[in-house]
């Protein structure tokens, strides 16, 4: 097995048993998602070697066993880096001092430190004391510092949880670049569907210490039996294979299976993904002619599931890709929607968030 294999089955605290098993693929980003208190941080801590008390945990990477029945590799010997929710900068050092702390202990190879400083826009902050940074700046330094260690595996524990939306969006942009250009295996813990949609390749869903579902991101997102579908921010991800900037409209059009989807910003690469919140998708029986909505896609209703008395979730097929739509029970009744129907999905362009 290449990559990181984790197998934990033991009580972590009174009344809470951690029972989880998954593999994080080499070079990919695996998200660990679940509500607060589902044991996500304990899993990261076990991987990092910060929980020697979890004697039943088995963690192995590539050919080496990190934690096992009679094995425990000290945290500082594991080729990983850990980005904590609270940044944890060394308070007696400057930004540069924090980066160099990791650099001096870095594994061989990896990115140039200057490149990392530029990626995270840290050059103007280099001499600032670590205690004088805003939450967003602190987290940028923390992520840059983790990368400066040149780890094989990067663990991120809700790194954006304490940031305002603008700072979080900036961090996501930086993390996407890391994902794209650095050869890293990332394990990203979050309870937010939008972050996971933007960053993850694989998704492990957790609840109360156990795995609910796991697999490639789109597979898990589009299942309608994981509990994720009833989350108000449920979303799906479409992959595009070509992107063109339309100068006259200042929109970018992305090719999704031969259909253009317009997004309101430039995309950094020609191939990537678009996150579409299920609540931003509406359904028409016939193709609307006089609508302000630019994105109208011919889709097939693949599955439906009730969310509550008022809402239901549809899984729509679009040339082999899936799209979620959250509509009201009343609309479904009026349109007489059922599985197999061919309909049109409308998505407001301004609601779309492209990624790579």
């Amino acid at each position, binding site marked *: 097995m290449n990559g990181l294999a984790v197998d934990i089955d033991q009580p972590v605290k009174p009344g809470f048993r951690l029972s989880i098993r998954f593999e994080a693929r080499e070079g990919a980003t695996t998200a660990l998602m679940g509500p607060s208190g589902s044991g996500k941080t304990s899993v990261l801590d076990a991987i*990092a*070697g*910060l929980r020697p008390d979890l004697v039943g945990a088995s963690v192995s990477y590539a050919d080496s066993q990190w934690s096992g029945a009679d094995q425990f590799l*000290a*945290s*500082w*010997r*594991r080729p*990983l*880096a*850990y980005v*904590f929710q*609270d940044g*944890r900068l*060394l*308070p*007696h050092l400057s930004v540069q001092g924090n980066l160099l*702390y*990791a650099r001096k*202990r*870095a*594994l061989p190879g990896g990115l140039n430190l200057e490149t990392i400083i530029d990626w995270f826009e840290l*050059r*103007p*902050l*280099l*001499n*600032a*004391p670590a*205690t*004088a*940074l*805003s939450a967003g*700046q602190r987290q940028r330094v923390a992520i840059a*510092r*983790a990368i400066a*260690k040149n780890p094989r595996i990067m*663990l991120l524990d809700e790194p954006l949880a304490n940031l305002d939306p603008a700072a979080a969006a900036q961090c996501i942009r930086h993390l996407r670049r890391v994902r794209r250009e650095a050869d890293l295996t990332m394990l990203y813990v979050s309870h937010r569907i939008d972050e996971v949609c933007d960053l993850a390749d694989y998704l492990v869903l957790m609840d109360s210490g156990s795995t609910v579902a796991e697999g490639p991101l789109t597979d898990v997102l589009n299942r309608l039996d994981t509990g994720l579908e009833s989350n108000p921010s449920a979303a799906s991800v479409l992959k595009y294979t070509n992107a063109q900037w339309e100068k006259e409209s200042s929109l970018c059009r992305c090719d999704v299976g031969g259909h253009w989807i317009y997004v309101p910003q430039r995309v950094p690469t020609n191939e990537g993904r678009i996150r579409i919140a299920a609540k931003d998708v509406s359904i028409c029986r016939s193709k609307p002619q006089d609508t302000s909505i630019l994105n109208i896609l011919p889709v097939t209703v693949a599955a439906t599931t009730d969310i509550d008395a008022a809402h239901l979730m549809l899984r729509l097929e679009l040339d082999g890709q899936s799209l979620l739509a959250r509509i009201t029970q009343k609309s479904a009744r009026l349109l007489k929607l059922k599985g197999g129907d061919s309909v049109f999905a409308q998505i407001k362009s301004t609601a779309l968030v492209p990624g790579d």
Partner: protein
Amino acid sequence: MLLSAGEWQAVVLTLELAAVSTVILLALGTPIALWLANTRGSLRAFAEAVIALPLVLPPTVLGFYLLISFAPDSPLGALWYNAFGRDLAFSFSALVLGSCIYSMPFVVQPLQLAFASIPEDLHSMTATLGASPWDRFWTLTVPLSKRAFMLAGALAFAHTLGEFGVVLMIGGSIPGETQVLSIALYEHVESMNYPAAHRLALLILATSLILLFALYRRDGWRLGAKSSHLHNQTHPAENGHGR
């Protein structure tokens, strides 16, 4: 200052004793404080009680037991004689040993407090950045405990300067070997030489005051600098600070 040759000798001896004791105390006190900061349970409580004993015991009690155990026919005294070929009792080494025991709480307690107040989170963070325990001690624990080290060193030094009871019991007032300033002063008073007693008393008083003043002023300066810098530089990027 108008000191006699004997008094100068006492000054030099006192400073020597304080310096040697401070170095030894910091070297011994640091691992003890580290252990105490990382241990729980009744063993720690017992160790803390033993180390704190000199704070409450009359120095004569401590001095009495030390006198007994330094005697040539005691196990420690005999061991010392076999190792170094000279008696431990009434020697400079005996004073150093005595001061180290006497001043240990003044070194261990500030260091233990400082070590324990370093967040566990920072230890685990530096470990994930590849820092070994030894590395973490020098690059995390020591820099974050800088003030405690300064305080511990200054207190050990000042406390050894002011030592009297223990030295009186185990020293024997041998000029050049065990006659420190406080003892010399005591002997001046005993022999009714008040002008000489005044000189020494004033010297000790002034030195201690200057030492403590220097220590507190440095702390005050640091605290002041820290708070003003927090006010001015909350967001260096926005203020155009930084590079």
